[in-house]
C-alpha cells in the first residue's frame, strides 16, 4: 500500500475534503452573503410579507444553518439541485439538457489547442534561439494577451462575416446532423482553443528546449534516428508530462471560456444557462451550476493527476515495488 495504491488513497481523501469545502462554499453563497436570499430571489418588486415568509420556508431559512446545509447536501448527493424559483424546472434536468453542448465544446477546444500547439511547440523548442523560434515565441506571448471574446469576434469577423464559411451563431445538435453540428461548433471551439494554444506552445517549447539538451536526445541522434523520431519519440514524449499537468488548469480556463463563447455564439450550454440565470436572478440555479461546475473541475484535476502518474514510469515506480 505504500506504492501507487497508497498514493491514490491519499489523493482520494484530499479530493473528498476539497469537494466538501466546495459544497460548503457554494452553499454559503446563498446563506451568508449580505442580504436575505429570499429577498434576492423574489426581487424588489415581488416582496410581500406573505411571499417573503413562504419563500423563506421553501428555502428552509427557518432552520439553523448547519441543518440547512445537511438537508441541502443530502439533496445534492441524490442529484437534486433544487428547482428554479422562476421557471420551477428542476435545475438538474435543465443541466442535463445543456451539458452536452458545453462538453462537446470543451473536448473540441482541448483537442484543437493541443493538436495545434504540438507542431509549433516542438519546432520552437527544437530551434530554440533561432529566428523561427523567436517569431513563434513572440506570437505565443502576444497571444496570451488576447481575451477569448476578442478572438471569438475576430473569428466571426473573418470566417463568418467576410468569408461566409461558417455560421456566426446557433447550434445544431450532434444527433440531428453531425456535419452541421461540427460546423456550428467549429468557431466557438477555435475561439476557446487559440488562447490556450498560446499557453500550450509556451509550455511545450520550454520543455522541448530543455529536453533537447539532455543526453538521451544526443544519444538518439548518435543512433542515427531521423529527425521526426528524435523530436516526437525522444524530445516530445518526456516533455508531454508537464503538458498534462497544464491540462488540468486549462480545463478551468475552458470552463470559464465556454461561458463567454456560448453567450457570444448563442449556444445552449451551461455557460449560457449560468448567465441567463444570473440575469434573471435565479439564484438557486446559479448555486446549483456553480457547485456542479466546481465539482466537475475538481474531479477533472484529480483525474489529470492520476493520468500524470500513469504516464510517467518514474512516478509509477511505486507499483513495481509493490508487486515485486
Amino acid at each position: 500500500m505504500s506504492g501507487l495504491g497508497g498514493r491514490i488513497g491519499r489523493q482520494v481523501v484530499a479530493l473528498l475534503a476539497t469537494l466538501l469545502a466546495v459544497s460548503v462554499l457554494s452553499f454559503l453563497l446563498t446563506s451568508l452573503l449580505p442580504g436575505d436570499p429570499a429577498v434576492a430571489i423574489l426581487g424588489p418588486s415581488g416582496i410581500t410579507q406573505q411571499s417573503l415568509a413562504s419563500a423563506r420556508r421553501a428555502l428552509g431559512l427557518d432552520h439553523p444553518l448547519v441543518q440547512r446545509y445537511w438537508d441541502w447536501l443530502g439533496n445534492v448527493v441524490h442529484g437534486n439541485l433544487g428547482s428554479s424559483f422562476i421557471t420551477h424546472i428542476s435545475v438538474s434536468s435543465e443541466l442535463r439538457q445543456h451539458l452536452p453542448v458545453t462538453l462537446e465544446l470543451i473536448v473540441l477546444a482541448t483537442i484543437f489547442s493541443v493538436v495545434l500547439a504540438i507542431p509549433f511547440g516542438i519546432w520552437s523548442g527544437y530551434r530554440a534561439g533561432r529566428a523561427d523560434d523567436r517569431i513563434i515565441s513572440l506570437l505565443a506571448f502576444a497571444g496570451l494577451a488576447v481575451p477569448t471574446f476578442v478572438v471569438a469576434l475576430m473569428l466571426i469577423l473573418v470566417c463568418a462575416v467576410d468569408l461566409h464559411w461558417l455560421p456566426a451563431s446557433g447550434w445544431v445538435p450532434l444527433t440531428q446532423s453531425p456535419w452541421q453540428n461540427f460546423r456550428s461548433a467549429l468557431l466557438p471551439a477555435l475561439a476557446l482553443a487559440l488562447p490556450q494554444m498560446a499557453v500550450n506552445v509556451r509550455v511545450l517549447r520550454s520543455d522541448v528546449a530543455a529536453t533537447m539538451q539532455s543526453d538521451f536526445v544526443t544519444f538518439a541522434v548518435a543512433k542515427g534516428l531521423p529527425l521526426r523520431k528524435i523530436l516526437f519519440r525522444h524530445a516530445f514524449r518526456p516533455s508531454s508530462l508537464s503538458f498534462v499537468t497544464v491540462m488540468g488548469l486549462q480545463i478551468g480556463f475552458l470552463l470559464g471560456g465556454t461561458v463567454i463563447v456560448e453567450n457570444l455564439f448563442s449556444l445552449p450550454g451551461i455557460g449560457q444557462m449560468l448567465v441567463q440565470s444570473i440575469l434573471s436572478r435565479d439564484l438557486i440555479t446559479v448555486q446549483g451550476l456553480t457547485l456542479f461546475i466546481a465539482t466537475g473541475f475538481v474531479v477533472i484535476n484529480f483525474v489529470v493527476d492520476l493520468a500524470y502518474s500513469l504516464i510517467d514510469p518514474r512516478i509509477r515506480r511505486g507499483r513495481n515495488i509493490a508487486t515485486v
Partner: protein
Amino acid sequence: MTGTPVAATSRPDGTASADPLLVVESLTTTFGIDGSEFRAVDGVSFELQRGATLGIVGESGSGKSVLTRSILGLLRRQRAQVTGSARFEGRDLISAPEKELRGIRGAGIGIIFQDPMTALNPVMKVGKQVAEVLTVHKGMNRAEANRRAVELLDEVHIPSARTRAGQYPHELSGGMRQRVAIAAAIACRPRLLIADEATTALDVTIQAEILDLLDELRRDLHMSMLLISHDLGVVMGRCDHVAVMYAGRIVELGRTTDVLVHPMMPYTRGLLDAIPKVDDPAHTRLAVIPGQISPAHVRAPGCSFESRCALADDQCRAAAPELQPAGAERSYACWHPAGADGGTVPVDERIESTLGQAR
C-alpha cells in the same frame, strides 16, 4: 599530408595499413561565446586502423568529448564551427550532409556516453531503445526488431533479457543501463565503436566488467574502438595506441607501451604519477598536477601547459610546440621532451606490471 605531422596509428601487429578506417585531419572545433571564440579542439589529427584501438586521454576540459561529438556531427545544433576533416571509410563526416551522416551514425559508428542514468530515454522501454536502431537502419519491422533487441541484450550479458527489455531505465542498475546503451550502439554491427568516458560514472568493479565487455565485443565483432577517458589506468591495458590531449590538442601519441614507459611530454608524466600505486603505503597522498587547464580565451600564444609545467621557460611562453614525430608511430608536442636528448626515463615498475596483467 606532408607538412602536417600526422600521428599514425597502426594495426595491432604493427604493420601499417593503406586503408585506415578513420582519418582525422586538422580537426578544429570553435565555439563562439559572447563574441569571443573558444577553441575546444585545436587542429587534431590521427588515424585509426581497422580492428585497432586508440585511447584518448586527458583531464576534463581537454576537448576529448568535443572531439568525438565533432566527428559524429553531434554539435551541429550547437553554435559550433567545425573545420578540418574526418574521413570514415573514405567519406568525410565533417562536410557530409546531415542525411548521409544519419546513415553512418548508429550503423557504421556506434557511440556510448558517460552517464547511463541520462543517456537512456526515461519514458521508453529499454528494449525499444535498442530496437529502434534496427528499424531505422536495417529496415526491420517492429516484431523482428524487438526479437533481435532481446538477442542483443543477451549478447551484452544482461540476465533474463526478455524481461529486462520490457522495463524502463529506472528499473535497471547503472551498469545494466550502460549495457543497454552498448547493445544499442552495436546493434547494427558498426565498424567503429566510440566509448566516451563510458565507465566514468560507474563503480570500480562494474567499470572493469564494462571494459571487459567492450574488449570482448570489439574482438568478436572486429570493430575498431576509440576509448576515451580521463583515466590513463582505463586506457592502459586495453589500447594499442594512446593519444594524450591537453587544451584541445594532442600533445603526445604513440604505442601505449612506449608512451607509458617513456612519456616525453611532462603532462603525460604528470598523468602517470597521478595513478595510485598498489604498493604505496596506506594514506599516501596522490601526486597531482597543480592548477587546471586555463580557459581558452585567456590563453597566451605559448604552450598551453606552460603555467603548470615545472620545465617551462621563455621558449615555452613564446610559442606553442607543434606535434612532431619521434621515431616509429610516436609523436609529441613539447620543447623539453623527456628522453629526447638520449637520456632514458626510468621505467616505472608499476606500469610494467599493470601492462603485464592486462596482456
